[in-house]
């Protein structure tokens, strides 16, 4: 963790597929393109965390929670929720802020599926089903977003960033990695 002099706090950066939660007065940051970040927090402790995920493109047919690709989103959310619960947070007290889902690359003409839109719909659908209230959000559009989340007081600083191409590339790598990972690592163990 590096020290962010401007924000006078230690800063934990998370990349695509990452998540981090803390009870300390730190800042958790990420850079988002079409991916989604959900900030989750229990103000009573306080404890909060941020994730950075997407639903992999090639499996996407629908955004319902039962759909094949949605389980990657469910998994990303569950990892963060469990991490917060382990640090003493209570599921009933969790609240959320949602960011991302921008169209950082021009959608291909032949693309049937609008990936950013699917990611956004998934995030709100999940939070709705799990009865986690959304306090604020900034989603969609064409610009990348830099997010700074303060788990201590659930505050978020956000700034738009124009340099979308690098992010789009990283997110594509991440999407492919997800599918690869599922093929290779999801091996059940029988005792």
């Amino acid at each position, binding site marked *: 963790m590096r020290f962010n002099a401007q924000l006078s706090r230690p800063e934990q950066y998370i990349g695509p597929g990452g998540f981090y939660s803390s009870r300390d007065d730190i800042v958790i940051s990420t850079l988002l393109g079409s991916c989604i970040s959900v900030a989750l927090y229990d103000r009573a402790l306080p404890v909060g965390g941020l994730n950075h995920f997407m639903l992999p493109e090639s499996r996407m047919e629908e955004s319902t929670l039962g759909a094949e690709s949605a389980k990657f989103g469910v998994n990303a959310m569950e990892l963060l929720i*469990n991490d917060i619960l382990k640090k003493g947070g209570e599921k009933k007290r969790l609240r959320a802020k949602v960011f991302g889902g921008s169209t950082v690359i021009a959608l291909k003409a032949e693309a049937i599926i609008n990936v950013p839109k699917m990611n956004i719909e998934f995030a709100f659908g999940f939070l709705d089903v799990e009865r986690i209230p959304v306090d604020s959000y900034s989603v969609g559009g064409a610009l990348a977003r830099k997010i700074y989340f303060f788990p201590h007081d659930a505050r978020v600083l956000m700034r738009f960033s124009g340099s979308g191409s690098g992010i789009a590339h990283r997110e594509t790598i991440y999407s492919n990695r997800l599918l690869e990972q599922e093929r290779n690592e999801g091996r059940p163990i029988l*005792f």
Partner: protein
Amino acid sequence: MGASILIVDDSVSIRQSVRFILEQSGYTVFEAADGLEGLKRLSEQKIQLVISDVNMPNMDGLTMVKKIRETEGIKFVPILVLTTESQGSVVEEGKKAGATGWIVKPFNNEKLIETIKKVLP
């Protein structure tokens, strides 16, 4: 009607997504939101397989597995643990508790169904 499977998970989304996959393969699905509710379901319903999460409020998955293994009438039901926990020590705990198998999320649908077929009596 396919075999009856009980899903124990505190997340509605996970239960929905597992239910969707199991029903597509013809299984009959029951749900419980934690270990306590899982035990209650097992006492009321003829269940042929349990799929359970680990981290849950009220009663966690591994405690439920131990209780099932101590309870006459249900002690031999196969139990697959479906979890984000992949750490060796936790998996070992699951084995000791009496789980039949361990699947780390995000799981592969085909592998999940294959595993279910292997462990169903």
